[in-house]
């Protein structure tokens, strides 16, 4: 098994390692393995029979012509087992290799877990290596930058407080051209719903936030957005396994909800943030489950449609296919809700093969897209199987209810010339729903 890769330089890893000595590396490894790794590590290491059942589950393995160095067990062997075999005495070069594998060759999608006869959580094992890299400081530059922003601002973009407020206000003004007296309430106490947005929706993808506001207004939801930090639901620190920051972000979201005394938090279409908001961050903080309901956009739209709070005026006739975001479908079983929504919006659905909780990752998840441009080629290569899946459906539209899947598939579309459009549910619903006459300006 030979580890052959094109050289890539990421200053977040390479420059950092120049200033790191091997004592610091050993300290980080000892800390993670002895203080943080739970019994799961021991059980998984002792249970794995090296049977190879996980091998063909991985899109990176399949996309790299069955190169065993990309197989899940192969990645474990080259990282955490290597660390264990060397009793933590590893070099900077080892760390560089580990960082490359765990940040750019595993999306933490957990598809492999479904194929392991013992249910070994391989993504957890690789996360331990990410955590070691985090404590050393060897994290891809773009992820590190976002995590540093989160540490103080809690948003991913170094957004100032006035920038968020100002953006929401001009979006509200714009929406009034479509919906009479449209409102995006800011910091309104006692609303039923606290809506949190993706950081990008406040800067580069404002149309998505406007469309969610349009749906909220038409569905007559009693809602608000935060008037303080905590409006951005993303949690890029999670990708670095920077648990300290991840916990702070999740706590901030719930503290805002408690202060405003809302009944529930609703977020948009994002996978990792949902995972941190209901599981990873919540558990880190000591909650067994989310202290108040934390609702993903898919569940929110499903309920709106089921309850008849929004009605769809027309359907899309072109062939569409459905991407299953790992963090909401494989982790949380939202595949049926997702399909119910799509069936209300689209006439012709051709499913990918495999689909639902066995669908492949978009190859952008788990922080790969957030690792920045230097890792884009790795992402494109790893997404070959996803591109083939999409192509085989003959679809013209791919519905991706996750920011990461959305951008990841857009990039695959361009790279593999798939000729598709990638759509959020929010945009489709806002476009296709009925606007009652009395709400028209």
């Amino acid at each position, binding site marked *: 098994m030979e580890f052959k890769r094109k050289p890539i330089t990421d*200053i*977040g890893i390479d*420059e950092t390692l120049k200033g790191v000595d091997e004592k610091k590396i050993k300290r980080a490894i000892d800390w993670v393995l002895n*203080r943080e790794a739970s019994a799961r590590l021991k059980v998984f290491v002792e249970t794995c029979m090296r049977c190879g059942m996980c091998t063909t589950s991985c899109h990176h393995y399949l996309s790299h012509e069955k190169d065993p160095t990309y197989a899940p067990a192969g990645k474990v062997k080259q990282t955490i087992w290597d660390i264990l075999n060397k009793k933590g005495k590893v070099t900077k070069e080892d760390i560089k290799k580990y960082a490359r594998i765990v940040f750019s060759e595993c999306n933490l999608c957990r598809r492999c877990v479904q194929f392991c006869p013992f249910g070994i959580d391989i993504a957890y094992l690789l996360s331990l290596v990410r955590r070691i890299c*985090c*404590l050393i*400081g060897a994290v891809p*530059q*773009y992820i*590190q*930058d976002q995590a*540093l922003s989160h*540490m*103080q*601002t809690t948003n991913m973009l*170094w957004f*100032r*407080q*006035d920038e968020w*407020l*100002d953006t929401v*206000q001009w979006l509200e003004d714009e929406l009034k051209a479509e919906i009479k*007296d449209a*409102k995006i*309430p*800011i*910091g*309104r106490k*006692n609303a039923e719903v606290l809506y949190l947005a993706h950081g990008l929706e406040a800067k580069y993808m404002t149309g998505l936030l406007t469309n969610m506001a349009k749906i909220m207004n038409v569905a007559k939801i009693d809602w608000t957005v935060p*008037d*303080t*930090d905590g409006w951005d639901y993303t949690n890029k620190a999670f990708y670095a396994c*920077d648990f*300290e920051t991840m*916990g702070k972000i999740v*706590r901030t979201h*719930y503290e805002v909800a*408690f202060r405003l*005394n809302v*009944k529930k938090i609703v977020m948009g279409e994002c996978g990792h943030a949902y995972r941190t908001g209901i599981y990873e961050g919540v*558990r880190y*903080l*000591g*909650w*067994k*489950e989310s*202290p*108040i309901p934390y609702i993903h956009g898919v569940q929110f739209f499903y309920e709106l449609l089921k309850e008849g709070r929004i009605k769809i005026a027309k359907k899309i006739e072109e062939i569409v296919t459905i991407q299953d975001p790992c963090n909401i479908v494989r982790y949380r079983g939202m595949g049926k809700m997702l399909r119910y929504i799509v069936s209300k919006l689209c006439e012709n659905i051709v499913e990918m093969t495999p689909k639902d909780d066995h669908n492949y990752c978009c190859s952008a998840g788990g922080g790969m897209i957030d690792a920045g441009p230097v890792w884009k080629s790795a992402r494109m290569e790893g997404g070959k199987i996803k591109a083939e899946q999409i192509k085989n459906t003959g679809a013209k539209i791919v519905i991706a209810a996750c920011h990461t899947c959305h951008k990841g598939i857009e990039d695959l579309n361009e790279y593999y010339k798939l000729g598709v459009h990638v759509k959020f549910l929010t945009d489709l619903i806002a476009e296709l729903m009925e606007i009652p006459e009395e709400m028209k300006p």
Partner: protein
Amino acid sequence: MTSWDWDTKEKVISNLKEWKEKFNSSEEILVSPDFEKIVAIVKVQEGKTFCINGETWNNTFERICFPQITPLGSVICLALRNYEWTLAKDDTVMEETFDYAWNLKTDKESKSIAFNIKKGDSYGVCLDGKIWDTLFFDARDLILSDDGKHAASYVRVENPPLLDIFSFKKGVWTIAADGNPWDKNFISIYGACFSPDNKKIAASVRLSQQEFTVAIDGKTWDEIFLNAWEPIFLDNDNVAVPVKREKGWTLAINGKVSWPYFTQLWHQRVSPDGRIAAVVATEFGKWTVALDGNPWKETFSHCVLPPFFSADGKKIGAVIRNRNTWSVAINGKPWDRGFDRIWSPQLSPDGNYCIAKAEKEGTYFLVLNGKIVKETFDMLWEPKFSPDGDKILFGCIKNGKYIRKVLSLSEVLK
């Protein structure tokens, strides 16, 4: 409170149905602390303004944000007019304007008004009409001293380009008090508070990935922790902060670990009789209040909000969420009933009664010691005990009218 009207049992302050006929729309309804005023932002032909008990301000604006009624009953807001933001108070508009203004705050006695400002590309604070002499690349949050004479904000004092992670890792944030930044920068600084004498500021600071401590007026403690939440001053000299060590979360006082370890610990508060209560998780999903380090026996599944106290400190309460419903626990004993929502419970001066506003399925009502008071309302504002504890005052909306009501405790207990 003693000067408030505690005798008139019921006053119809305003007929809100008339407001609906008069104005295009109304939003953000607020009531004054004595429940004598009801205020809403309303749309008139010229723009937006306030309607107070049916009377509108003369000034109108393009936008009205952060509306508040101060403890003394003044109506204040930050407002946009001619594309510039300013402060408006009781229909008087401040002359100075800003490119943006937010985080409007007043002190407990309404003596001062402060808010964050943006002027050009610079950020800072305006306190009582005076803009800080020094402005910064960014200013986030506003912390106002109890006497209203000092304001602080987290500020960015370095401006490295995006993606310059090595500069950001050195720390670009600090706190500025009255415009004067500390001389140390941090990766992150948060949870700032003033000492009771308004002379010092304490904040939690992050020094590296796993190094957290407390800084007081810029001087950090020698003790370093794996994580830390927000500090509080116990008095003018002593600071308590939840910190994480290998064994879990505990409370450190002046850097020294002072409590047992818990799965989680936050929202520490000092009782009037000088004890410390905090929200803790004794294990995953088991939340309660700990008093001087000793947790209540009863734990709650979902969460516990910050503790509150009776005047003598003998009764300690907290809003709890257990098995997906909200309730209140006093001295460790939860009320029997749960609600969809519950608001700011208040203990009577003698500590024997606790009253709260609650909601179930869209109906609002009062709850006293866990028992629902029969009358229901379309809207209700948080009730208050009279200084002698014999009466309960609240504001409510019923049949389209805003009503100020006083009930005797015996009436509520019926």
